[in-house]
């Protein structure tokens, strides 16, 4: 099939008509993108220059102002606002998108602005729960049906009674993990799209989640500490990004991915964070379409082995069944970089001062609201 496509392409679109396609990527998959680019070149004769950029948001900020942009760039959903404001992205019509795959309205919406689609969704990462199965009895995971609570986690029968093994941990002071809890308690933003720090949602979420740590139900560990303990078999359950799963596989950890646990009667969604391809050069639209089409064809293994939700298909592959369960209850961060930055900085401070009891919850949230109002 590939050979036929290549043959048609090389006749219909001679390589000599195009200069190289430039593609900027980041996050996982550097080798994968190079491999796909080389294969595409071999089949079509269209040269593709892939550039892996370690801090793509910093580079993009400058490039959007100067206009020195690649043909395609892999971006995060939160960059949609500034990309739209720059006016440099090529709006994509439904026919173009349909030729590449099936994209749900939800997947497209985070890359939209003023009714225009600005990027082709590629994959999504999720915040999930990781359970180390080797530390609990074999029938334990089946006890965690949908709607399980943290108390259910604490009650899981262990293989060994080792006091050094922690039941449940995550970083209370991480605003990104905490966003899920906020979303479970109510509205996160006000009518302006700003974080609603002074709302009851925030007060209740901070108070009740803080209580989990104060009572010793959950242990607070920083990210590196959590990962190290999990790898060393000293932590049964933690909340982290699904992008860690390949590391655990490489380390031979027997793990299971779970949705976030409930807190009391509150169902806590997982944060989903999408990546997509923005196209900056209208003249390259056709070779871009060919390249992306080829890329999506080749990407299913990449998605499954890296535990990423492929956004160009309607049905998820069977290897991602655990992630599919998580997908039943997800929430997205507002695709506004201002929200991310203001929320991130202020919320981290609120959680830190509340954790060490340097300020009351009310005072901390009032200060956060003042910060948000001043900087929005």
């Amino acid at each position, binding site marked *: 099939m590939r050979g036929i496509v290549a043959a048609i392409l090389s006749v219909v679109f001679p390589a000599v008509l195009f200069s190289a396609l430039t593609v900027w990527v980041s996050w*996982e998959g550097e080798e994968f993108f190079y491999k796909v680019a080389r294969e595409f070149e071999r089949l079509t004769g269209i040269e593709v220059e892939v550039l892996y950029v370690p801090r793509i948001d910093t580079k993009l900020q400058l490039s959007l102002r100067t206009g020195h942009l690649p043909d395609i760039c892999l971006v995060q959903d939160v960059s949609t606002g500034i990309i739209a*404001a720059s006016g440099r992205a090529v709006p994509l019509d439904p026919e173009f998108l349909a030729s590449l795959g099936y994209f749900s309205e939800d997947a497209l919406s985070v890359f939209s602005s003023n009714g225009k689609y600005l990027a082709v969704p590629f994959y999504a990462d999720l915040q999930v729960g990781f359970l180390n199965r080797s530390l609990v009895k074999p029938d334990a995971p089946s006890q965690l049906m949908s709607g399980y609570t943290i108390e259910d986690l604490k009650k899981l029968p262990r293989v060994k009674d080792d006091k050094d093994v922690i039941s449940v941990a995550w970083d209370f002071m991480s605003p990104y993990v905490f966003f899920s809890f906020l979303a479970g308690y109510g509205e996160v933003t006000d009518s302006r799209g700003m974080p609603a720090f002074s709302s009851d949602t925030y007060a209740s979420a901070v108070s009740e989640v803080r209580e989990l740590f104060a009572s010793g139900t959950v242990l607070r560990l920083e990210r*590196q500490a959590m990962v190290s303990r999990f790898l060393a078999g000293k932590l049964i359950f933690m909340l982290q990004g699904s*992008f860690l799963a390949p590391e655990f596989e490489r380390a031979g950890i027997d793990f299971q991915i779970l949705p976030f646990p409930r807190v009391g009667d509150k169902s806590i969604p997982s944060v989903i964070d999408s990546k997509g391809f923005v196209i900056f050069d209208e003249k390259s639209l056709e070779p871009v379409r060919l390249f992306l089409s080829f890329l999506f064809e080749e990407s299913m293994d990449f998605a499954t082995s890296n535990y990423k939700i492929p956004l160009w298909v309607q049905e998820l592959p069977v290897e991602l069944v655990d992630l599919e369960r998580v997908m039943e209850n997800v929430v997205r961060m507002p695709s506004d970089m201002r929200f991310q930055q203001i929320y991130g900085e202020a919320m981290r*401070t609120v959680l830190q001062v509340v954790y060490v009891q340097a300020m009351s919850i009310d005072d901390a949230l009032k*200060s956060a609201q003042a910060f948000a109002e001043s900087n929005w």
Partner: protein
Amino acid sequence: MIHGKKDRILFLPMALLVAVTTLFPLVWALIISFFRYSAYDPSPVFVAFNNFLRVFRDEGLVLSLNLTVLWSLMKSSAEILISFLLAVRLRHSGRASQRVMLLLGIGWFFPAYISVSAWRALVQGYAGHSVLSSIFGTGIDITTQPLAAFFVTLFVAVWLSVPLSTIIIVGMLQRVSSDLDDNMRIDGINDLNAAAVLFGQVRSILVPYAFFQLARSLKEFSVPFLMSGSGPLIPGGFTPDTIVGSTTFMSILLFRKFSVTDNYGILASYSVIVGTLVFGWLVAALFSRLDAPKRHVRLLTLASVVHLLLGVFSGNYLAGLVMSFLYLVPLLLLREREHFRPIVGCILLADLLYAVAAFASRGLEGLPAASLLAVPAVLLSMRYSLRIPNISIGSLTKRLLTFLALLPTVVIFSYVLLLSFSPISDVLPRFKGLGLSSFRHVLIRDSLWLNMLNSIWIALLAIGLVALCVFPFAYSHAFRQRRITTVLLSVALFGTSFAGMHTLLPLYMVFDHIRLLNSFIGVALVVATQCIPLSAISLIAFFRGLPREFRELFLLEGSSETSYFFKVALPLSLPIIGGIATYVFVSAWGAFTAPLLFIDRIELMPYSLKIFSYVGEIGSYYSRWNLFAAASIIGIVPLLIFYKRSLRFIYSESLKERGVMYE
């Protein structure tokens, strides 16, 4: 005196460098400070003084400024003291000294990302245990304890700065005649007094360097950011405009401002304040090299101006006015030496007491940053004599202290090495299943050596640019301060003090216009510009210290100024040049932002960008610690080779001429 049109060749290259890389970005950024130019504005929107009003009402900025000045003073003082004592110990060229210098350099060569992570593992620990907690039972948590974050960051920053300062000071000490050692031995002068004598020999270059390091510390970013981010909140730090933690130094504040607003105008206006303060201390570095009474006049005036400006800025109007006036009083008594020095001493004491009282009563918010800057500047200018006890330190104690100074480097190196041999990616080293797979991956699969070659090119070009532009300029300015060279130096110094994301955009436009994007020379130009302050300040002070008789004799014989520069001045400056060349090489090797923004082609990617593909985007990627460690180990090899070669210059025999008397 240097005169005539022919010697314009000495400062023209610097003029060109500054014109290309500094002038337009500086002017553009200063103008943009009167505009709003965020990601949501297609073009800049004029807002007059709104940005500056915002800066002046920001209570958080005052806190951050006070915090930064306190931290910087502590950091640079500790750094210079430790480096000086180490340099005194290592100043004689010998196998042992060179080995110790090499080992010291290793700690400096590792990317900050991995060495800071190593320190976090040592101090705070991961998974609940750290070396410190295991040995001393400490419960340090830099994510929740403001003081812990402040002091741990201070300690790590000092440790990372000591190698460069030691190298530079060893270079300075090479100008001291070996006859002095014999004379001190004959006179029975022991270690502490000997150190004081040596300090006197190099103070004219060491003091400007110390001020330069203080100025540089005011813009310290990587270590505090990687170690603790903004740090735990300090009392009064949750202000509406800015959140101030115990390590929210000014550079981190600027970074946060830009992240939140993405507004070049706001960033530029904040940078005016920060840049002015940094520039003030670079100027202090230059003033400190002058002879009395010019030195006293300029530094007292600077102290007065700083008190006035910072007093107004922080709302301490009365105190600022009074202290500002006090520092001007001695200027009326310049000719009366017997009164002048005691009166200045009293003013310094008053300033110090005022600072202590203000801090005691109002905490960090009340700390007068101006005092922390003015007191050291004027104190070092006055050169008061202190009675130092004539104590000898036992040879075993000296070895132990040297060992303790090197111990952190050995530990960090061992940590990184273990990580690099680890089969899995974890921030804690493992002792099982060690192998070379990570090295094979980075060298062969990822062809890291190609990126290293790119970095070597950039580094050599940067050194060439500094040699071509800064060396002759420093020589020219050392002997004759023309208006043009003073303006040039001021623009260069203020440009580097003021630089940030707001100057990178206009620089990008300049480079685009003259086709320097996607080129090694473009990145090398940025690196060379960033190295101007250290190079210029050190060299100006050094050239001024060269014996005047050499030059006069040379010129009397009919040779030109340029000929003297190349045949005499440069060779005599080899020790300092060796240190500067190492500094430029290491700066180029670690340069990140310039290549990130100015290079779009994979074949031009330098080492610094390549290894960050193993780090990834923080928060949405897990760092490949074993690969990063392997890449770091491989990456220090070229640095070590270059450094070893530089040590030959630093310990250059050409300066050890018998009978040469220095100032």
